[in-house]
């Protein structure tokens, strides 16, 4: 048990270091001199040198890397070139909005995906199945930067039911959550269907039916319980796509989250903030997946032993 936990944590730590390294290298991908790109050609030499020193770009690469990692260890992500605020503070101000959006989108996705997948599995091969899976394929193919504006057009502009953008008005979460949740729902619905179909073929389901249980009870109480595991795994893995998609959704709806902070920072060429956003979101993703893995290991001895 302890071995399992330690091995898993160690490999997560390696991934975190790798991720941080890639994020560190990002600023060195700037074409030409990052300082020129950030301040423009007309900046005064004194300002350029000041920024170069502030970013540590005047140091040798190894020294920069060392400073960067020792900063990270103190949760210091540097500061914005514009507002001079620490990146960690800027992030902290935006995290609740993104968290709320991701959570709402997940709830929305589950509300669509579970009935849809159930229906498709129970009515396998019938028109219901075909309809549900076609719907899921459409959901998979709809870009969220298009779905968002279309939902705004219909529900905000034509019907006047929901706010167009922002986070203050009541109900402003609804459209962003649907926009971000639809693609997620499509993938989940497919997973619910295939996972349930697999379980429905098991002997114990046949036994339950032979006992004379009614079909809804067989499906929900017996089959669905065992169909959850792959669905929950997918939920964790798809969190990455969800967080990536949140960037676009936040821009569409002017949602003040980490994604819109990232895009604002890119437009202002505020590289420390760009790096901070990417690092933060990736670390959340790694953390959630590691915790999911650990939870499985604790719950299911087979997974623990599969490691050796």
């Amino acid at each position, binding site marked *: 048990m302890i071995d399992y936990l330690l091995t898993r944590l160690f*490999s997560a730590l*390696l*991934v*975190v270091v*790798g*991720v941080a*390294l*890639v994020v560190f290298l*990002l*600023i060195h*991908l*700037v*074409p030409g001199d990052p300082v020129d790109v950030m301040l423009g050609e007309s900046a005064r030499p004194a300002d350029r040198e000041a920024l170069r020193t502030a970013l540590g770009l005047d140091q040798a690469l190894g020294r920069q890397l060392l400073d960067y990692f020792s900063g990270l260890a103190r949760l210091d992500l540097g500061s914005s070139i514009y507002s001079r605020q620490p990146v960690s503070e800027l992030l902290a101000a935006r995290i609740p909005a993104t968290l709320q959006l991701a959570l709402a989108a997940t709830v929305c996705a589950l509300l669509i995906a579970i009935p849809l997948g159930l229906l498709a599995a129970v009515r396998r091969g019938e028109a219901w199945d075909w309809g549900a899976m*076609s719907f899921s*394929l*459409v959901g*998979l*193919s*709809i*870009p969220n*930067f*298009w779905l968002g*504006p*279309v939902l*705004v*057009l219909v529900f905000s*502009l034509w019907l006047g039911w929901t706010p167009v953008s922002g986070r203050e008005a009541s109900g402003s979460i609804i459209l962003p959550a649907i926009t971000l949740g639809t693609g997620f729902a499509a993938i989940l619905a497919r997973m619910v269907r295939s996972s349930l179909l697999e379980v429905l073929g098991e002997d114990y389901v046949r036994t339950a039916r032979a006992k004379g249980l009614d079909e809804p009870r067989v499906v929900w109480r017996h089959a669905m319980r065992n169909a959850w595991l792959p669905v929950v795994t997918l939920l964790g893995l798809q*969190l*990455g*796509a*969800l*967080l*990536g*998609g949140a*960037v*676009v959704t936040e*821009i*569409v709806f002017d949602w003040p989250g980490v994604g819109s902070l*990232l*895009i604002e920072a*890119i*437009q202002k060429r505020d*590289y420390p903030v*760009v*790096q901070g*956003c*990417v690092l933060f*979101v*990736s670390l959340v*993703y*790694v953390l959630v997946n590691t915790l999911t893995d650990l939870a499985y290991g604790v719950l299911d001895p087979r997974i623990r032993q599969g490691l050796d």
Partner: protein
Amino acid sequence: MLRGLSMFILLLWALAALFGGGFAAGANTIDLQRILAPPSELGLLGFDDLGRPLLERLIVGAQTSFLVAFGVVAVTSVIGSLLGLIAGYRGGWIDLLIVRLIEVFLAFPGILLAIALAGIMGPGLDNLIIALSVVGWVGYARLARAQTLALKQRDHVSAAIALGSGHWRILLRHLLPLIAAPLIVEATFGVAGAVIAEAGLSFLGLGIQPPAASWGSMIRDGASYMLMAPHMVLAPGCTILLVVFSLNLLGDRLRDRLDIRLTARKRS
């Protein structure tokens, strides 16, 4: 029916991208008389906020998405498959290194790293392809490695080794053909993903720069005029949806077809 329709859409996309240039000569012609004009006999899909014909801009956008999608998939599938093959076949520290690399790149959520890369490298077609390629190779590598691990103990591989075949010959002649099917399926979904990613980055202003057209930047331009001219958003959006839907359908069908041996094994 759906099958035929989706193949037709993909054919249309390819034709528009490869030979559509002649029909899209006026894509950047600004006509102030036609600003935001709805679809009519003058322009089948209407005109945008600068009076440019949407149909012709869609054709230019098809060229952009086609070039980026196939560029990205060509680069990522070759690099990813090779890395996966080598990792699975050689094992040892090479495998360990490649697996760690895969894990690190998998840890970046979705399109996030591509957004940051494109944002930092600056806009443009080449940077767009680079950004999406840096992110996109991982899936192929993981797949190729897992398949290679499963297949390298097969008798025909041992026979090839015994006969003194070189490593590259074994990789490319004896292993690659066996793992090609799932890679092709992955590549089909990869094209669909790249179409959406290109449009998404261009929507964020990180891809193709004006006046060049991309389906994504057309949606961004249209979003400001949604009430007056919904066709500006609907036309490019429906186009993306149709193309990506067709690609996903094709991918699903290929998977069902090419996985025949796999399903047969499961049943026995």
